[in-house]
C-alpha cells in the first residue's frame, strides 16, 4: 500500500516535470521568434536573401520602419516627408538637391535666358520608364501641362494662386524649354523638383486622385515599386536595373511594420533608427554603430498669437514681453532633453547663409518682460495638441508666463483640431510645430508678406514691400541687405514667438549600409528621406 502511494507520487512528480519542461520550451520558443529578424522580414518580402551582413556578392536590402503614407505617386501619397520621399524614389525630377546646391539629374544640363524667365533643359537620352518605354521631352511637356489641371499633393508650381509656368515646349526629343510668368530666385529649384509623369499612362487618366490602375506607380526613378500593403504600412522597392543615372545602391528597400523602433533596430529588423537623446549613449560606446547628430534647422516650435481676435496682442510690448518671458533654454533642456537649438526670432535659421545675427535675440529675461508689461496682467488660453511633448511644453510656457503676470490656461486637443484652429483663427495663443524653413529665404514672403494667412491680424507695410522686392532681386548683395532688414523688422515686431528646433540623432550599422546622406542643402530633416541616400555617388 505504502509503495503504491509512493509510486503515484513519483508519477505525479514526473508529470509536473514534463509539463514544466513543455511550458519552458514554449516560452523559449516564443522568445526565439522575436529575436530572429529574418522571419519578420520574410512575411512581407517573401525574399530570404540579404538579412545577414552584406558581403560583396550578396545583394543588400535596407529595412526601415514603415507606416502607410499612401500610394507613392504624385497624386496619392500623403503630405509630409515620408510620403514625398517615397514618390521621389520612384519618379525622377529634372534636378536633385545635394549638400550644397541643385545638381543635374534627369536634365544633364540647363540654360537660362537673359531675363531669367525661360529655362532650357537637356535630358538624358537613355532614360527609361519602369515599363521599358523611353522617356522623352514629350513626357516633360505633358507633365507641366497636366499639373496645371491636376495639382499634385506636393505642389511647387503655384505661387499665391498663380501657376508659374506659362509655356512648355519640346524643342527636340530630349530638349525642353520651360517659360515662366516672371523671374524669381526660387523658380528654378521649384520646376527642378517636379516629379515627371509618363505621358503614355496619365494622358488617359481624368481623375488622378482615384487612379490606381496599371502603371499608377510607373516612374523613371532608380527604384520601382514591387509591394505596397496599406494595412501594414509596408512597401518594397527594388532597384531599377536599366536606370540611366547614378546607380541604385541597394537591391531593395523595404518598409516594414514595427511597434518599437529601438527594439526593432536592436533586433536587426530595421537598419536605421532615430533614438531620443537619452538613448544615444547606448550606441555611442559601441563600434558596431555610427551615431550622427543632425540639427533639424528646417522646422521649429512656434507660439502663435492671434491679433485678430485678441486686440491686446496688437500691442508690440506685450508680444515682446511674452518673447522675453518664455525660457527657451529651459524648454530645450527639459523637453528636448538637452539637445535643440533656440530659433531665431527673425525666422531664418542661424545655419542659413541668409541669417542675420544682428537682431534682437530675446534671451530669457523675466525682469525686462515685467518692465514691458508695466504691471498690467493678462489672461489667455493656450491651445496645443495633446501629444506628450506639446502639453509639457505648454505647461512650461504657462509656468514662465505666470511669473510675469500673464495667466495662461492650457487647452489640449487633437492635432487636427489644433491645425484647424490655426487655419481658421479660432485661438488666442497656440503652440505648433512647423517646417518650411529650409532652402531659399523667399519663404519669408509667404509667412510674413502681404498674402500671408499664417499670422492672424498682423501686417507691416515695410515687410510687404521688402518681401516682394527680394524675390525678384537678382543681385545677391542687394538681396542679402533686404533680407537682413526683413529679419530685423520681424524680430522687432515679434508676430510669432519662435521657440526651438529639435536635433535628430541617426544610428545605423555601417557594416550593413553606410550610404546615408545626412544633410541636404535645403535642410530637410531626415537622411532616409533623401534620394541621394539610396544611390551610388562618385
Amino acid at each position, binding site marked *: 500500500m505504502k509503495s503504491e502511494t509512493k509510486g503515484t507520487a513519483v508519477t505525479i512528480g514526473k508529470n509536473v516535470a514534463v509539463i514544466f519542461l513543455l511550458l519552458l520550451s514554449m516560452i523559449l520558443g516564443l522568445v526565439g521568434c522575436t529575436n530572429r529578424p529574418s522571419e519578420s522580414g520574410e512575411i512581407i518580402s517573401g525574399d530570404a536573401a540579404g538579412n545577414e551582413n552584406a558581403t560583396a556578392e550578396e545583394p543588400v536590402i535596407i529595412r526601415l520602419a514603415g507606416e502607410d503614407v499612401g500610394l507613392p505617386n504624385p497624386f496619392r501619397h500623403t503630405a509630409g516627408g515620408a510620403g514625398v520621399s517615397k514618390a521621389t524614389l520612384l519618379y525622377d525630377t529634372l534636378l536633385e538637391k545635394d549638400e550644397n546646391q541643385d545638381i543635374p539629374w534627369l536634365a544633364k544640363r540647363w540654360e537660362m535666358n537673359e531675363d531669367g524667365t525661360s529655362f532650357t533643359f537637356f535630358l538624358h537620352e537613355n532614360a527609361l520608364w519602369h515599363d521599358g518605354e523611353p522617356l522623352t521631352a514629350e513626357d516633360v511637356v505633358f507633365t507641366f501641362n497636366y499639373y496645371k489641371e491636376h495639382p499634385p499633393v506636393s505642389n511647387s508650381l503655384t505661387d499665391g494662386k498663380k501657376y508659374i509656368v506659362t509655356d512648355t515646349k519640346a524643342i527636340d526629343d530630349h530638349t525642353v524649354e520651360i517659360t515662366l510668368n516672371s523671374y524669381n530666385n526660387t523658380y528654378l529649384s521649384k520646376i527642378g523638383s517636379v516629379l515627371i509623369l509618363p505621358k503614355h499612362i496619365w494622358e488617359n487618366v481624368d481623375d488622378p486622385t482615384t487612379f490606381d490602375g496599371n502603371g499608377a506607380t510607373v516612374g523613371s526613378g532608380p527604384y520601382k515599386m514591387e509591394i505596397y500593403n496599406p494595412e501594414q504600412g509596408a512597401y518594397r522597392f527594388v532597384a531599377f536595373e536599366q536606370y540611366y543615372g547614378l546607380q541604385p545602391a541597394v537591391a531593395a528597400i523595404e518598409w516594414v511594420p514595427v511597434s518599437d523602433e*529601438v527594439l526593432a533596430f536592436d533586433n536587426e529588423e530595421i537598419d536605421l533608427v532615430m*533614438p*531620443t537623446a*537619452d*538613448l544615444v549613449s*547606448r550606441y555611442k560606446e559601441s563600434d558596431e554603430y555610427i551615431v550622427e547628430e543632425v540639427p533639424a534647422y528646417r522646422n521649429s516650435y512656434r507660439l502663435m498669437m492671434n491679433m485678430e481676435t485678441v486686440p491686446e496682442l496688437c500691442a508690440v510690448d506685450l508680444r515682446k514681453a511674452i518673447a522675453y518671458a518664455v525660457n527657451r533654454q529651459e524648454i530645450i*533642456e*527639459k*523637453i528636448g*532633453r*538637452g539637445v535643440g537649438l533656440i530659433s531665431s526670432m527673425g525666422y531664418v535659421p542661424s545655419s542659413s547663409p541668409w541669417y542675420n545675427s544682428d537682431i534682437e535675440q530675446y534671451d530669457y529675461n523675466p525682469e525686462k518682460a515685467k518692465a514691458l508689461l508695466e504691471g498690467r496682467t493678462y489672461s489667455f488660453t493656450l491651445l496645443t495638441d*495633446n501629444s*506628450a511633448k506639446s*502639453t*509639457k511644453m*505648454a*505647461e*512650461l510656457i*504657462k*509656468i514662465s508666463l505666470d511669473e510675469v503676470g500673464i495667466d495662461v490656461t*492650457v487647452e*489640449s486637443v487633437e492635432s487636427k483640431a489644433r491645425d484647424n484652429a490655426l487655419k481658421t483663427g479660432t485661438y488666442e495663443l497656440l503652440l505648433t510645430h512647423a517646417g518650411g524653413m529650409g532652402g531659399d529665404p523667399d519663404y519669408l514672403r509667404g509667412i510674413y508678406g502681404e498674402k500671408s494667412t499664417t499670422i492672424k491680424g498682423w501686417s507691416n507695410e515695410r515687410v510687404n514691400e521688402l518681401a516682394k522686392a527680394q524675390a525678384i532681386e537678382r543681385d545677391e548683395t542687394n538681396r542679402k541687405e533686404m533680407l537682413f532688414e526683413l529679419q530685423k523688422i520681424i524680430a522687432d515686431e515679434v508676430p510669432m514667438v519662435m521657440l526651438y528646433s529639435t536635433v535628430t540623432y541617426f544610428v545605423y550599422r555601417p557594416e550593413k549600409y553606410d550610404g546615408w546622406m545626412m544633410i541636404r542643402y535645403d535642410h530637410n530633416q531626415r537622411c532616409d528621406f533623401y534620394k541621394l541616400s539610396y544611390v551610388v555617388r562618385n
Partner: protein
Amino acid sequence: MKYAKLLKCIRKIPGKLRNFNIFSAYGKIGFVFVLLMVLTGIISVLFMGEAHKIPSGASLEAPGLIHPLGTDDLGIDILAQILHGAFVSIQVGFFSAMLAGIGGSTLGILAGYCGGWTDKLIMGICDVMMVIPQLPLMIVLGAFFGPSLRNIILVIVILSWSRPARIARARVLSMRQEGYIIAAKSYGAGFRHLAVKHFIPGILPIILVSIIRLISKAIRAEAGLTFLGLGDPTSKSWGVILNRSINFSGIYYTDYWKWWVMSPLTVLILLVLSISFIARDMELLFHNKGDKL
C-alpha cells in the same frame, strides 16, 4: 422625531467601527493606508502649495534626499505630484461614489416602491447601462464632455449608479412584503415616511458596502481616463503622471521608469487594494449583523 431611527442607525455605524478589532489584519492595513492617503492629500493641499506644478530640480533626478521619489522630465518633484494626485483620486472616488450611491439607491427605492411603469423605466435604463461596455462608453463620454475633474466625476457617476439602484430595489421589494411595512401602510404611512423610517435604514448597510466598492472603481476609472489622455493634461493625477512617464520615448531603456512609472503605479495599486480589503471586511460584517442594525 421622524428621523430618529435613521439618525440612530447612522450613529450606530461608527459605533460598530469604533472597535477596530472587528476588521481583519488586511482590513486594518487597508484602513491605515486609506487614512494615510487622505491625510497626505490634505497636507499636500494645505501646506505644499504649488510644489506639484513648479519645477524644483533638474530633469529626471534619481530619488535622493531632496526629492525622495525623484523628479519627472520637467524637474517637478514626483512625491509632491503623488501627494497631490492622492487628493485628486480621493476627491473623485468620494464624490462619484457618493453621488452614484445616493442617486442610484434613491432611484432603486422609487422603482421598488412604486412598481409599474416607474419600475420598468428605471430598471430598463439600468439594464441598458449594465449591458453597455463601460470602458468604451467612458472614453466616448470623457471625450465628449471635455477634460476636467468635474466631467470625469460626472462620467463615472453616469456609468455606476445602476448597481446600487438594483441592490436598493431588490431590498425594497422584499421589505415591502414584511409585516411591519404592511402594518405601517395600513395606518396610512406615505412613501416619505416609509422611506425615511424603514427603507433607508434597511438598505444603508448594503449600500454602504456598494459605495465603498464604487470608490475603488471610481479611482481606477479616473486613473484610466486620465491615463488615456481624457483628463486635464496639466492636472497632476496619478493617471496623468503614468501617461506622461509611459509616453516618454524609450523610458524602459533608461533607469527613469524605476521611479517615474513605479511610484504612481504602486500607490494606485495599494490604494485600490486597501479599499477592496475594507469593502470585503464591511461586507462580512454587515452580512452577519446587518439584520440587527
